[in-house]
């Protein structure tokens, strides 16, 4: 019993689950309608569904970011890749036409394939800089973070391109079995990544590179290849998130699409219990982390507070979660508790 308890409290995602629980409980007390789910026209509606739906892009980014952070790196470029993917997809759909069209210039499958291909390439580029030229991850990805939005603007001609092509809107706005289509995308991405992490040696290799790159290389792990693949996956995830975001707003906004998403994604991973120093990781934790961030935002909206003030609460929650995870803080609290007992 005690062992089980320890197992649960010791798990990496524990503080994230507690934070999520606390936010939901807070809502239950102050706003009972929060948990109501109604069915309208065969779709499920309610705050909970809303939270799930809105957290999709960050969840997908956080899944890719988990591997990156597990190798001891960070990927600052994902927000820019989201914008780039949206720009590529919408401009491919529009083709050469200057007017708003309801047909696509290219089959949707091809559009998705090319977009994801370009996003993956962007990630691989980061990986190559980091693995072979040995540039620090923060700097290498900073380059693409700055330049990526510029490239996206180059593609859109610095305009906000829009489209009316209906099938494209299904990705981010469609419904299936009463639930948003984008939720199914998250489930598919998460299952594939978990399969890769748990059922193959890849997950272990990632952890090993994160704990010590040189030791991994000496023991025969192709650390450089692992790094390139990891950043490639992060780019691919950013591409998928970019499609969801682009489809949701049905336009390519190179300036604002995915703005600051990299920060939320990194935050989600850290709240989910993966240490920024690398090593062990938890993909489920990162997804819960993304839910924590989104449920916080949604519940603050429910109280008629200006949305921007959310940032203050977000800051406090971040500080609380990282302090709970901090070793010196835990030890300090333990010492204080012991002192209290002696008195």
């Amino acid at each position, binding site marked *: 019993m005690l062992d089980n308890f320890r197992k649960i409290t010791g798990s990496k995602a524990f503080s994230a689950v507690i934070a999520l629980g606390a936010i939901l409980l807070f809502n239950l007390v102050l706003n009972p309608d929060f948990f109501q789910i109604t069915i309208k026209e065969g779709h499920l509606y309610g705050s909970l569904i809303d939270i799930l739906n809105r957290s999709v892009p960050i969840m997908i980014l956080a899944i890719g970011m988990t591997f990156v952070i597990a190798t001891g790196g*960070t990927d600052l470029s994902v927000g820019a890749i989201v914008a780039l993917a949206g720009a590529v997809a919408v401009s491919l759909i529009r083709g050469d036409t200057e007017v708003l069209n309801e047909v696509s210039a290219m089959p949707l499958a091809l559009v998705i394939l090319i977009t994801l291909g370009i996003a993956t390439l962007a990630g691989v580029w980061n990986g190559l800089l980091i693995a072979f*030229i*040995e*540039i*620090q991850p*923060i*700097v*290498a990805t*900073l*380059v*693409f*973070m*700055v*330049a*990526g*939005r*510029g*490239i996206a*603007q*180059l593609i859109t001609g*610095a305009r906000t391109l829009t489209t009316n092509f209906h099938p494209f809107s299904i990705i981010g706005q469609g419904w299936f079995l009463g639930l948003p289509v984008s939720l199914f995308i998250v489930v598919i991405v998460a299952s594939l990544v978990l399969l890769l992490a748990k059922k193959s040696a890849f997950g272990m290799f990632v952890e090993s590179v994160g704990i010590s790159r040189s030791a991994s290389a000496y023991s025969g792990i192709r650390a450089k290849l692992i790094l390139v693949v990891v950043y490639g996956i992060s780019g691919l995830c950013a591409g998928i998130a970019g499609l969801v975001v682009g489809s949701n707003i049905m336009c390519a906004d*190179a300036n604002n699409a995915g703005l600051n998403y990299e*920060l939320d994604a*990194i*935050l989600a991973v*850290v709240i989910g219990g993966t240490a*920024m*120093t690398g090593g062990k990781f938890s993909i489920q934790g990162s997804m819960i982390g993304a839910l924590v961030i989104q449920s916080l935002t949604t519940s603050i909206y429910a109280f008629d507070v*200006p949305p*921007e*003030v*959310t*940032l*203050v*609460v*977000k*800051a*406090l929650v*971040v*500080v609380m979660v*990282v*302090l709970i995870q*901090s*070793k*010196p*803080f835990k030890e300090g609290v333990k010492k204080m508790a012991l002192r209290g007992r002696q008195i």
Partner: protein
Amino acid sequence: MIKIQKLFNIKYVTITATILLFFIFYATGSMQYRGFFTLRTFVSLFSDNAYLGVSAVGMTLVLISGGIDLSVGAVAALTTMIIAYGTEVMGLPAPITFAIALIIGTSLGLLMGTMIHRFEVPPFIATLAGMFLARGLCFVISIQSIAINNEWFRSIAKWKIKFQGGKSYITVGVIILIIIVVFGIWLMKYTKFGRTVYAIGGDEVSAKLMGLEVGKVKVAIYGINGFCSALAGIVFALYMSSGYPRHLIGMELDTIAAVVIGGTLLTGGSGYVIGTVFGVLIQGLIQTFINFNGTLSSWWTKIFIGVLLLLFIGLQRVVVILSHKRQTSNL
């Protein structure tokens, strides 16, 4: 002769490259556009980018120590809000709002430094929280832009040293920048504090074992950077004469880019404040180029800065590899 040798010393390669690049850029611009090679354009490089320079000096310290600070733009924006709200809504004298802003900026920095040092929170996350907090507080103060009409403030903002018959001038912002740069150079070059910062960036554990006051210095670095961010906010408020919660979004990236282009290694342990000044000027030059050209769109700034970053990081790698080889061949 010795001086030339010193210039090509491996230690100074990146900073030499930065300064050379600045002059090449400047020469190209001067040859291409009329009015580029004038004192006015040169001086306006400083007055238009003074806020960036002030913040970049603080960031140089942070990056040399091997850390990072994402909160600078938000703290500077908060400063503009404090000044605007303090003078316009609360009717406080402007100097008092300046003092309040500087105290709040420094305290935020010290808090983040404490989180980083005492509780071993990664600098990225601690300062991200600081950024959220400061940006959020901006919106708590007001959602709208507030114009600053305070008389004393206006007179400071308008005050300038004119020369060339008023065609070129130096603003208060530029004077603040010069003071901060001189202070930064002195701090990093001639004090124990500065040497400790380099030591922490080189190897924190060794620095601790050498008996240096790693903890105090680390917290102080973030405190100083918080002060610089608030000061940058004051300079920016003087430049814009308004407080706005959406001011300076993304400034932290420009600042970090300027410091990296200025030759500071992001791994820590190496870099110069004077390099940072040239990094800021190069960013200003790119902007001036685009203004003079008129047909280039602003997104080219982003692509240019990305390419420049890449160039400098590549150069830094070469330097690190070469100095590594030299060390091992000396053995």
